[in-house]
């Protein structure tokens, strides 16, 4: 049996916003019957161009239904520019995490949102250059590349968990390996998250590692509590951040910064990191 969080169970048993918005401004359809999961997302904007209503219809497992429900809750009230920035990690984070084998459900949510926004803007859906890598599930190289970058994936198994690519006949495994190599370069496989002791990071490497750590370890749980954090600057070992959302007026924000953000960054980036808050 899968280890689903209570939040996943809740959104599966009591899904929010099921259905189709009438006269929708944007419609996004992703997945397919053949693949075993599919999602139709519809939304309507208000006069301020914010998402007034978002509804879903999903064919799929418990985590696919829960991810769709979470997605509609997340985007409600957002402008399209804000909605565009929603990642699959946000969806998974909102649900308190998903089993790794089920992360593709959160990716499907993000893709449906993108498709719906593109549909609203009248853009042709994904007519850019792409190659279908996984023929079983119809996953393109662009989709795989994006999932690799956004989630710091380093192994073929992870790519399968996040995109489903390679989960069928397995003929595309060499191609997936090649994409991984292309993204991360020949030598450097990233997200050996703990830097070996004594390793000297270049400034660029440090900035990247801080960003990655924030995106992967720090921001998703904060967002789940209604907060957020923005990276403002990095000067030497000092990382300047601004707290947003509920965190910005939370009396224990100092505690959050020192005990949580700083300790995570020290764990994954380096022991000398100091975190400072930039007040708005």
């Amino acid at each position, binding site marked *: 049996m899968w280890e689903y969080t209570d939040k996943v169970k809740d959104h599966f048993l009591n899904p929010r916003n099921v259905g189709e918005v009438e006269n929708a401004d944007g419609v996004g359809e992703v997945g397919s019957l053949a693949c*075993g999961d599919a999602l139709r997302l519809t939304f309507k904007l208000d006069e301020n161009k914010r998402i007034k209503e978002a509804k879903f219809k999903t064919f799929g497992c418990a985590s696919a*239904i829960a991810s769709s429900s979470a997605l509609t809750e997340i985007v409600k009230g957002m402008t399209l520019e804000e909605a565009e920035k929603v990642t699959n990690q946000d969806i998974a984070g909102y649900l308190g995490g998903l089993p790794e*084998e089920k992360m593709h459900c959160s990716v499907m949510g993000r893709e449906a949102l993108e498709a719906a926004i593109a549909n609203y803007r009248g853009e042709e859906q994904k007519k850019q250059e792409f190659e279908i890598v996984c023929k079983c599930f119809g996953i393109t190289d662009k989709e795989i590349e994006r999932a690799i970058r956004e989630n710091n994936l380093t192994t073929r198994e992870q790519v399968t968990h996040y995109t489903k690519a390679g989960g069928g006949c397995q003929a595309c495994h060499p191609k997936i390996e090649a994409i991984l190599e292309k993204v991360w370069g020949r030598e450097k496989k990233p997200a050996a998250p703990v830097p070996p002791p004594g390793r000297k990071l270049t400034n660029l490497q440090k900035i990247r590692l801080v960003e990655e750590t924030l995106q992967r370890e720090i921001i998703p749980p904060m967002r789940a509590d209604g907060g957020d954090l923005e990276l403002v600057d990095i000067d030497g070992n000092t990382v300047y951040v601004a707290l947003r959302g509920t965190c910005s007026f939370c009396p224990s924000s100092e505690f959050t910064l020192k005990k949580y953000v700083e300790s995570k960054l020290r764990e994954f980036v380096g022991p000398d990191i100091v975190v400072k808050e930039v007040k708005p």
Partner: protein
Amino acid sequence: MRTVYLDNNATTRVAPEVVEAMLPYFSELYGNPSSMHFFGGQVARKIAEARERVAALLNADPSEIVFTSCGTESDNAAIRGTLESYPEKNHVITTRVEHPAVLNVGQYLRARGYRVTELGVDRMGRLDLDELRDAIDEQTALVTILYANNETGVIFPIEEIGEIVKARGIPFHTDAVQAVGKIPLDMAKSHIDLMSLSGHKLHAPKGIGVLYIRKGTKFSPFFIGGHQEGGRRGGTENVPSIIGLGKAAELAIEHMDEENGRVRALRDRLEKELLDRIPNTLVNGDRDNRLPNTCSLSFEYVEGESILLLMSDQGICASSGSACTSGSLEPSHVLRAMGVPFTAAHGSIRFSLSIYNTDEDIDWVIEKLPAIVERLRDISPFWKDYKEGKPISSLMAGIHPEHTRHR
């Protein structure tokens, strides 16, 4: 909450009589059956009795019964033990719908240079025996074919197959894990050389299995060690479980009529009522040649894991051939081999009954399941379109629906 257990092809309840029979062997009767003293000797006699009881269930000779740790060990021992006895041959015939304990041994052998022929099945899950006849050649060392399918319950014509295989002088193994205890078997009149069974599928505990090896069959032991099991499987006997399996075999003989009478009737009622109450429901597998306890249904346009979890919420335990329950992303290899369309394969649910199920259990499922499927269909983007007769957009139907596994 009420628990309705309909997942007996996964595992069964240990019969209370079996538990009782086993208990002394965990405590006061702890001797090693190989010991020379009276204390171990009394245990050895009880093991001999258990062996006789298992033999009686199969109408075999007790010397043909080898106790193992599980069905998977029995399958591995049968296949690899036979191949070791025929080092000059390099071909194995099996089917596409085997349990992983055979299917993955096939993959293992292939990687080591064996030719492995996997016979296909038709839409009803049936073999084409001409395909088997054509596949046999001079290099064939072993034919291993499932007795009854764990997902659909479809029973293969094992004696007819055995006749074809034996006419060519080739050893014949069958994985009968799902068949033993549910349908009568008679080794005295059979062409089977080797047969696997597993205790926990017939109300004995987990961790005990049997490999039946017909007298005169070439066999190299898979577990090398002491002289236990006539030198065919080393290792000190799992005494309590062997005693338990002996008792379970005795009970299985007593309950054989009930399995094929009352349990079959319960299964048939469950199936009929669900087909009547839930539209777009299909039965997977040959309904005329099935285990009496198994029923595999597909509910179109919904996904199996969701059904399982909502049923679980109502205390109903079953299983699914859907991709999402396994983490493998593709639906069951059995349903795919049968060519069950994707619309149905993802929404497959297997119910498997036992003598412990009651009319009330079936009533509960009949009452709860229609609402569960309806609820999920209301969430599904395909159902409304389907009902309104709209075609599913090509995007949503799947980019490569024709694509099948190719390896």
